[in-house]
């Protein structure tokens, strides 16, 4: 769709607000509706929109599948790691009360970290799934590596 000037310009205009909205949903998730999963989907939508308009190859160059695999793992690690940190501080798994000097701050940090882990994994996974489906039948080096 490279030749559609209107689409290209509008996409370029839209992608930044979409990402900012995703980040808003992400980091405001503990006070308002939203959270890691929703934010992850919105963020991934921005990448997918980019891929639809500018092509899969461009998108892969901007957000590499190899990086996505690492961030997907890092997200899970952040989630589980937060839980384990609470354990090391003397609480139960994912007991945020133990993350900071007082329980309210602890709950705040805990939610923020865990939701960020979820968000990271959701962005990576949804984008990876899109890459695999979109790349089907095309010759890519995805299958060899």
């Amino acid at each position: 769709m490279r030749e559609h000037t209107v689409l290209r310009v509008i996409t370029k205009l839209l992608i930044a607000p979409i990402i900012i909205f995703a980040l808003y949903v992400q980091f405001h998730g503990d006070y308002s509706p939203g959270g890691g999963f929703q934010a992850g989907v919105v963020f991934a939508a921005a990448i997918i929109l980019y891929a639809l308009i500018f092509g899969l190859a461009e998108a892969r160059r901007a957000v590499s599948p190899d990086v996505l695999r690492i961030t997907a793992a890092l997200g899970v690690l952040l989630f589980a790691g937060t839980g384990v940190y609470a354990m090391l501080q003397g609480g139960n798994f994912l007991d945020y009360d133990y993350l900071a000097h007082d329980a309210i701050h602890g709950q705040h940090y805990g939610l923020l970290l865990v939701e960020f882990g979820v968000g990271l994994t959701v962005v990576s996974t949804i984008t990876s799934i899109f890459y695999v489906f979109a790349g089907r039948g095309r010759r890519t080096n995805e299958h060899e590596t």
Partner: protein
Amino acid sequence: MIEQFFAQMPALVIVLPLLAAPMCVLLHRAALAWFVYLITAWACFGLAFLLFVQVKIGGPISYAMGGWPPPFGIELVLDSFNTVVLLLVTGIGAICSLYAKASVAAEIARERAYLFYAAMLLCLCGLAGITVTGDAFNLFVFLEISSLSSYGLIAMGAKRRALLSAFQYLIMGTIGGTFMLIGIGFLYMMTGSLNMADIAERLPAVADTRTVEAGLAFIVVGASLKFALFPLHVWLPNAYTYAPSSVSAFIAATATKVAVYALMRFLFTVFGAAYAFDELPLGEVLMVLAVVAMLSGSMAAIFQTDLKRLLAWSSIAQIGYIVMGFALASSAGITASVTHMVNHGIIKGALFMAAGALFWRLRTISLNDIAGLGKHMPWTSAAFVLAGLSLIGVPATGGFISKWVLLEAVIEPGHYWLAVAILVSSLMALIYIGRVVESLYFRERTEGQAVPGEAPPIMLVATWTLVLANIAIGVHATPLVGAAERAATALLGGGA
């Protein structure tokens, strides 16, 4: 610090594999990922053992996830029943981790091996999670974790048919998972709670409603799909046949048992035996299906020419024994179920590992291709024969113990026709195991067939560990049967 460690064990058994799985992905190198898998699987086994002992001495343990007290938060509950299942799952997982390295190196592309180990860890995490959780919705989540990872694992099989069978399993497994979720949703609708103990308390007040009955039906059908009870078994033979060897061994030994565990947990702990078996005719339905599964599964196994497919059909038959036990809804019946869960897990694990060792050498395991290997691969063949004898139920093996306990349980209330079905199915097992033994020992290798050497030592060690564990149970059955009896008491509500 030590006290904190002991207090955290119920969660650690799930958290360790959950942490290790992304680490495998980050490490990326096959050897490193395998090492992480090995350490984690054995650590989980150690934890399961400590938990087993702790429950045996101190009674049930409750663990509040995130510090939220039950019934508001997710509760992990360990009692005499699920510690046995947990010990089986993590034990098989640990032995599979020894076995996996050689078998994965031969069957899975090197660049993808780290993903294989990550998926194995997630599967272990899901299965352990199902066993330890005391929360109905959490059980569904772990069920999905274990199922999704096993679809991926099966799809990694060497043949292209593996993809198709994984897809088949995905469709059936997803239907099963969805049914369970609908059932849990109905219970939530009527009781307003997701904590199993809490649902059990609130359920009697609303038990006579169509919603609760429908919920029970959905959960029974959903779980039956997951453990492949006849006639919901069609996904199983292909999935076990085309999966990589170590996956077949791990999943055949654990996944179906854990699904049976989940159903038993719902029937006895949540609904209560009186509701499910006295007010509703569930016992009779399950009993008939179990008998048909035993006979048809064994019959189909007799006519297979592929060794792994033969073992898969035999699994369908063996699930029948386990279901028959708890369908009696008696203490002796549940004891028999739990005993056979463990024994069949160990036997099937050993048989699939032996089959995998043959496959490692030959790259094929049809009964014709393994002809005469008794001489060339003596250790693998002997392991197969011993585990096979146990499957038939020869004395001094674990299989004999399960059949003995099961026969006692069915004869006590006078169900002689069930005893006949058990004996007929055992004779059929004699035939299909006999066919394999005949091929291994009483045929010669023909011209043009390669003459392979023995499988790698590490694979043999893993296989023989299971074979010897099985014989140890056969010789000294008291610990297992005692644990199974305690499990039955815990399930029927007579304390821990």
